[in-house]
């Protein structure tokens, strides 16, 4: 009987710590809600003083009556249009100028001439000014353009230089990265080969152990001669239990083959390495070579 392989599996307990934190969180939220959500203080409003007057002072009524006053102004304004009616007076004055029409006319003409001349002069000046301004603007524009061009060229040159620098920097970086990568790969290769030899060692060890166990369980038939070799294919579970055994290459002695198969079944569970990679050599199928003697 092999009880340990029959031992039941007991499930892991659920995450306790997270649950504890959540429980504390629920209570904290509830307490905060109570402390800040409910107003526990009953506040009395501040007392208000009220004065009661039996006889109001006399000054008060005018204040109350004042608002009606605005209406009166319109009546005051209304008479004004009536006053405007006598306005024709200026109209009556106007007929007076005709007394000296020539002078006025000439004066007016001269005045107009003067104004016209002035206006023309001003226009001319303005035009001149505009032309000058335009020229100035054009010059400024040209200067600005030249300056911009210069700036652009400078920028271009700088950019070129920077690109060159970048390129150099990048190649240097790449070289460094390549070197680092090569070193890393070499280290990885070394680690992998080391691991491989380790795995191979473990595999060999367990092969020996399995052979020893099977050999111990083998009952050799009486008619066995020499040291014949049997090859078997053994299907294994990850726990080492033997599922099935099949003879792939017989030794020529049927009784001996049978004895080896029985011995392998008897040896279940076979000792398997704990290492996952090493176990891959045994699971799910192990090709097994057996000789009665070493």
């Amino acid at each position, binding site marked *: 009987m092999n009880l340990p392989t029959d031992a039941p*599996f007991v*499930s892991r307990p*659920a995450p306790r710590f*997270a649950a504890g934190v959540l429980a504390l969180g629920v209570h904290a939220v*509830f307490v905060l809600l109570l402390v800040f959500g409910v107003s*526990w*203080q009953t506040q009395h409003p501040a007392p208000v003083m009220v004065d009661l007057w039996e006889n109001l002072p006399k000054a008060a009524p005018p204040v109350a009556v004042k608002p009606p006053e605005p209406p009166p102004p319109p009546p005051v304004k209304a008479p004004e249009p009536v006053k405007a009616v006598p306005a024709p007076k200026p109209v009556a004055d106007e007929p007076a100028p005709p007394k000296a029409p020539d002078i006025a006319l000439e004066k007016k003409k001269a005045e107009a001439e003067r104004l016209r001349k002035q206006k023309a002069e001003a226009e001319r000046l303005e035009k001149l000014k505009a032309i000058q301004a335009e020229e100035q603007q054009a010059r400024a524009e040209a200067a600005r353009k030249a300056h911009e061009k210069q700036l652009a060229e400078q920028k271009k040159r700088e950019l070129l230089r920077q690109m060159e620098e970048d390129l150099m920097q990048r190649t240097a970086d790449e070289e460094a990265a390549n070197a680092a990568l090569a070193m890393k790969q070499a280290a990885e290769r070394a680690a992998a080969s080391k691991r491989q030899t380790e795995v191979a060692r473990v595999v060999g060890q367990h092969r020996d152990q399995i052979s020893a166990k099977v050999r111990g369980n083998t009952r050799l038939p009486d008619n066995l001669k020499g040291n014949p070799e049997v090859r078997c294919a053994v299907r294994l579970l990850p726990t080492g239990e033997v599922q099935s055994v099949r003879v792939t290459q017989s030794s020529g002695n049927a009784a001996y083959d049978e004895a080896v198969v029985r011995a392998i079944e008897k040896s279940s569970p076979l000792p398997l390495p704990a290492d996952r990679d090493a176990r891959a050599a045994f699971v799910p199928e192990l090709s097994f070579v057996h000789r009665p003697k070493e």
Partner: protein
Amino acid sequence: MNPELSQDLSLLHLVLNASLPVQIVMALLLGASLMSWWFIFIKMFALKRALRMTDRFEREFWGGGDINAMYQRVAAEREDAGEMEHIFEAGFREFMKLRRQTGLSLNVIIDGTRRAMRATYQRELDGLESHLSFLATVGSVSPYVGLFGTVWGIMIAFMGLSSVAQATLAQVAPGIAEALIATAMGLFAAIPAVVGYNRYTHDIDRLANRMESFMEEFSNILQRQATKAV
């Protein structure tokens, strides 16, 4: 009248000014509430996981995979396997062991397999149901504990009233308020516990039903396979 004393009804003040029995009751209820919430969350995580794993397993099982391959997978990662997977593993392992021993009748093989599955089923169910009794206890008892604290607090408040010549409401109001906090805490502990208990027993019942039907169906499948092989 002493307005300052009668108006300060902050939560902390009420709790700290309560009499000793009432304070003990409050501490007890706070502890019960914390524990029950803890278990509620533990059960919530565990049941969610169990439901998820059961769904996954049933999909895989009835999806028409190779039983041998599935057994190997479950045996290899039993740490992460769900409840139903454990039942399946136990049953199939027993079945294989029994079948290897020649000379056993079909009935013996199937009975042994079913016994192995039932044992694992009981164990898994026990794990799922742990802590639930605590929730039930908190849910039914803590309102009474809170009520006890309240009655005690009100008694104290009225005893204080007897020594005063002119009784006013302001003399008993703080005592009654602090006593009533005990009832509130009892209800606060009880309500989530009752809800959680009902919810989880229902969930576990449904899971148990699924597991039992699976056991029956799986026994049938194994029986068919064994008859075919013999």
